[in-house]
């Protein structure tokens, strides 16, 4: 093993140049879409009919449910979306009583929030998950390797997995009916069927105005908060409610998009592979010096301990 200074720099230089050329602009994380679609869920309007679950099941061709969508006892248990259901409605009794002293229920529809800066898309090793211009967080199964890092990353615990498929399992989550909303006038299955207009589909900016208007016109009915406006950098799905969100299973998440820290560290360290190239040069220098000073001699480390 012989190392000359010239030979070393020749190879190190070539490696560095090749590495730099192979990455055009690695630091550019794609910015969130300017004018995405979204949905506003008005929890004061939801009556828990689960028609949205039914429609979702139908338009996405999901397997039939264990118990029919008309069965009200399903609501006795809090559920999570899974690989067989992209959306579920849960019933909460936050404590208010009606005129006849009955607890008033609040129903909460859960699905993928379609974050503006999705952690799953940042995490995905192959870019199978991407944030589209129309607001969808889209899953491309042809790229997926099934590492499930998206599931680790998602702050809302949304992506589910076909754990019982041995060879071709898929990540399963709300598609925001990508195909349907890509067509002029198309609505997501759930928003289209909702009999009480609890789900409003539209441009996210417009929906924020709608939400503020509803809250402003009826401050006694609504809390002055839009869940999803700022959460994890903003989400395409947003909620307004009469009941504090904490009582309805919504979790506290930071306003900063959750993948930001990891991305910043990663890009600071590895943009244009500067740190590995510097380290390579440094180690090469050490190796070259040590070879020059000590040609293959056994040193006396053992006696110096």
């Amino acid at each position, binding site marked *: 093993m012989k190392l000359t200074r010239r030979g070393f720099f020749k190879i190190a230089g070539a490696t560095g140049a090749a590495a730099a050329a192979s990455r055009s602009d690695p630091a550019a*994380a794609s910015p969130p879409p300017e004018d995405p679609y979204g949905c506003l869920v008005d929890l004061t309007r939801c009556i828990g009919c689960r028609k949205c679950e039914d429609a979702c099941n139908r338009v996405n061709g999901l397997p039939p449910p264990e118990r029919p969508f008309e069965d009200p006892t399903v609501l006795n248990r809090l559920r999570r979306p*899974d690989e067989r259901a992209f959306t579920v409605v849960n019933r909460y009794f936050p404590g208010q009583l009606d005129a006849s002293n009955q607890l008033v229920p609040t129903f909460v529809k859960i699905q993928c929030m379609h974050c503006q800066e999705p952690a799953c898309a940042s*995490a995905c090793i192959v870019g199978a998950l991407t944030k589209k211009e129309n607001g969808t967080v889209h899953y491309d199964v042809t790229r*997926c390797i*099934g590492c499930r890092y998206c599931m680790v990353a998602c702050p809302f*615990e949304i992506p589910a997995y076909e*754990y*019982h498929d041995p060879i071709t399992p898929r990540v399963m989550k709300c598609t925001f009916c990508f195909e349907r909303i890509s067509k002029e006038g198309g609505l997501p299955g759930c928003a289209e069927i909702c009999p009480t207009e609890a789900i409003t589909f539209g441009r996210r900016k417009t929906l924020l105005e709608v939400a503020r208007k509803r809250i402003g016109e009826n401050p006694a009915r609504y809390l002055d908060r839009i869940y999803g406006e700022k959460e994890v950098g903003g989400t395409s799905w947003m909620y307004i409610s009469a009941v504090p969100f904490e009582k309805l299973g919504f979790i506290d998440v930071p306003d900063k998009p959750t993948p930001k*820290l990891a991305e910043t560290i990663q890009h600071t360290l590895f943009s244009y592979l500067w740190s590995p190239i510097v380290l390579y040069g440094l180690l090469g220098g050490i190796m070259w010096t040590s070879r020059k000073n000590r040609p293959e001699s056994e040193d006396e480390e053992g006696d110096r301990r």
Partner: protein
Amino acid sequence: MTHHPYPLKTRFWTPGVVVLAVLMAAGAAAVVARFIGGIGYVSNLSTARPWGLWIGVDVASGVALAAGGFTTAFLAHIVGRHYFEPVVRPALLTAMLGYTFVVLGLLIDIGRSWAIWKPMIFWNFNSVLFEVAMCVMFYLNVLYIEFVPVVVEQFKGRMNLPGPLAALNGLAETLLGLADRILGKIMWIFIIAGVVLSCMHQSSLGSLMLVAPTKVHPLWYTPILPLLFLTSAIAVGYPMVVFETTLATTSLKLDGEMRVLSPLTRLTVYLLGLYMALKIGDMVVRGTYVHLLEGTAQTNAFLAEMILGVIVPWLMLLSERVRRNRRALFAACTMIVGGVLLNRINVFVVAYKPPVSESSYFPAVGEILITVGLISTLMFIYRFLVTHLPVLSAPAREVSS
């Protein structure tokens, strides 16, 4: 001290090896079950808990405990301390096998094993996992290349394939000769690349969980997690060499190589000390010590990791008597290895608490069988290779009859 690795040529099927074979068979059965019934059939993984034992032990710990490979290569070949040459080959073999089994573990863990090549084509530079995968892939190749001279040394000029394969002897000899001539001149490229790639992905493994700030317990979630992973990997490198060398030399009835191991662990005092200082400093700066005595499983796991895995063995290694005593040194190094193992399990499994569903997780029997099976296979192959290739150089122990 003469350094001369040689194939041991000892009896292979000892009772210990038979036990390994049994564990391998059990693991193989679980692997078959996984590829028939799916991951869900053999594991307790769920929507809330997508990563478990396999990622925590097979992948994260596998990578960390293979750190002996690049740390000894750095010491002996880059800094030029040839005194430590006798441990470089065994550490290299462990790293090569370790990374091979990281990839095998991944093939079992990822849902679409057949698609494992896709990150080579579809790149996501935002993904920490992408960088880790690329580094692991390149490093695994570097390790195989670094191991080629061992094979060359054994077979060059001695190719003697049985029966009809004898016709290939000439071709094999040509290849071995070619490898011998070329590799000697360019090996330095791979040695440095191995260290660089290791530093990159050892640290990035720590960045993996930074993507989930709301899920990882604050005792572990820190912006310097990648630095902690890098320093702990560097710190565990030499203790891992002591651990495996002591196990191998005891099991194979060889000399304990204490002349090399003792000075090696003197360096560990500084390396582990640095990790300890960073870890405690981080805790103080972020004020997370308030969680220490909460008494939950999570905080107790942190205390165990820090006290038994870092502080106590560090104090032990401060004493020269410990460093010179085979048993005491083995005990200290085992604790350090266990500490890093526990740290990786903690970061990837214990610290992870899904905030919505708050589901708990304990690995299923199938998961444990597969992990144990993989580790057994690794040890089995290690034993096979040191029996037939010049890896170890410790002379046989004098046995009083």
